[in-house]
């Protein structure tokens, strides 16, 4: 990744222009030709440096509810549990973590009732007790800034 790639990545991350021809705005910003900028974006997508280009929305302000949840399952149950959990389209991310609560996942649904319903369904499908499921909705946001500077 050279200097121009990093400049392009930074420009793409921070504020993709709301304009009919966004790459022309970015090209002007980084001082390069628009065709060169777009060619490099295609390469960065191709090699996986850019996972996705899109809108990051505030699900709560759109009228949806979200939460972070965790379940405590037996080692032997992990594969089945991760399948059951990942099958819900409302589950956006899920991770295996080194803790007694070993599967953690984020959920976005139409309201808190829908979230509670999905968590209860998961609990029953996996035969878990009430204490084996955590529902951890955000009470206060201190920071949300998932932008990263490309390392030099």
């Amino acid at each position, binding site marked *: *990744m050279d200097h121009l790639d990093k400049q392009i990545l930074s420009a793409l991350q921070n504020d993709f222009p709301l304009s009919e021809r966004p790459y022309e705005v970015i090209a002007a910003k980084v001082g390069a030709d628009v065709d060169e900028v777009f060619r490099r974006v295609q390469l960065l997508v191709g090699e996986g440096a850019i996972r996705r280009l899109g809108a990051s929305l505030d699900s709560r*302000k759109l009228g949806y509810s979200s939460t972070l949840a965790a379940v405590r399952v037996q080692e032997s149950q992990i594969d089945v549990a991760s399948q059951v959990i990942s099958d819900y389209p409302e589950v956006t991310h899920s991770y295996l973590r080194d803790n007694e609560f070993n599967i953690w996942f984020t959920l976005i649904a139409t309201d808190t009732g829908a979230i509670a319903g999905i968590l209860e369904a998961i609990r029953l499908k996996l035969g878990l007790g009430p204490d084996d499921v955590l529902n951890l909705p955000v009470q206060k946001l201190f920071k949300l800034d998932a932008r990263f500077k490309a390392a030099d």
Partner: protein
Amino acid sequence: MKSSLSDLEKRVLAVLQKGFPITLTPYQDMARKIGIETAELLDVLKRWRDDGKLRRIGAVVSHVKVGLGAGAMVVWQVESERVEEVGTMLAGFPQVSHAYERPASDAWPYNLYTMVHGADAAEVDETVAAMSRACGVDKYRQLQTLKELKKAPPTYIKGV
């Protein structure tokens, strides 16, 4: 709270949730899919940006590819009267991307959550130790991610 989006907004969301096409004219291409003018789509997005529904438009960059290979969720057990102060302090670390207060329970007594990033595990450990010293909280747990099981953008509108 139920979604109070207009029909137009729902149609925009249904296309937006799939991510932008990698084309020179992404808004024009999405607008065509929605069946509206490019200017209309840009108007909706500008309105959403102004009222906070739209946080940001941009690339999601792979942490690994930009040299931030390690990350951990660190959960902190903080006395309720210090949550505000400690949350603000931890959020101030540049290595922290997310900081939230979440409810504690008997089964899980932690109430502050931070995502901490670094080049490698040692760097993350160092940052976490510095965070602990800075806020004077030593009841915390660092949860390593062993495996990513699913990572998908939210599905707001199903069946599209």
